[in-house]
């Protein structure tokens, strides 16, 4: 699984992109976010308020219940501010 981080989430976590095998206990986006928050203080702090966290899987917006598979490209980012 590839995970991408953007904007202040990238800055706070200190990582733009990582590649890791999908942990067996993670079934969906909610599970991944929980798992990431327990990964260390930077992750815990960056993902503290999930109401300002959006997730895309394979470049489409998804809800928290979206199932994850190894090989997915998961992007985690704050609400967008382009235009």
């Amino acid at each position, binding site marked *: 699984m590839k995970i991408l981080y*953007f*904007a202040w989430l990238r800055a706070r976590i200190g990582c733009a992109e990582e590649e890791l095998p999908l942990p067996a206990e993670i079934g969906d986006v909610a599970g991944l976010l929980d798992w990431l928050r327990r990964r260390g203080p930077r992750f815990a702090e960056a993902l503290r308020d999930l109401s300002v966290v959006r997730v895309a899987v394979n470049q489409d917006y998804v809800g928290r219940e979206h199932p994850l598979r190894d090989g997915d490209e998961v*992007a985690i980012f*704050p*609400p*967008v*501010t*382009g*235009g």
Partner: protein
Amino acid sequence: MIRVQREDFDIGVELERLTAGNHHIGGIASFVGLVRDMGGGNRVSALTLEHYPGMTEKKLAEIELEAHRRWPLDASLIIHRYGRLEPGDRIVLVATASPHREAALAACHFLIDWLKTEAPFWKSEETPAGERWVEARAEDDAAMQRWKT
């Protein structure tokens, strides 16, 4: 047509190209977004636009298709820049061309409202107090809601 690029663009040239040779077009609506020198009460000396390469192009292409599904458009164009920009610089151009002005105006409005809430771009501003990530605005979400019927 969509383009995601670092370089500036010439509005006159882009609009000319958009309608060239098509004499069914009666109107072109367009919106150009510029870098402002103020943001959230702070003086802004520069802006950096980050985006999600791949998803950006995918979402822009999808929404352009959706605009053509909703309105009778002959042509459309979305150009969105990324990278470091300064006050007065152009950020985005949305243009829609149609035989009918209402269609062009509505589709242009729809596309820019959509861009503000769904296109994976993020702005950070350089201010006297340091770098500051621009926050999403509730008004932008409200503006987008109107098109969700």
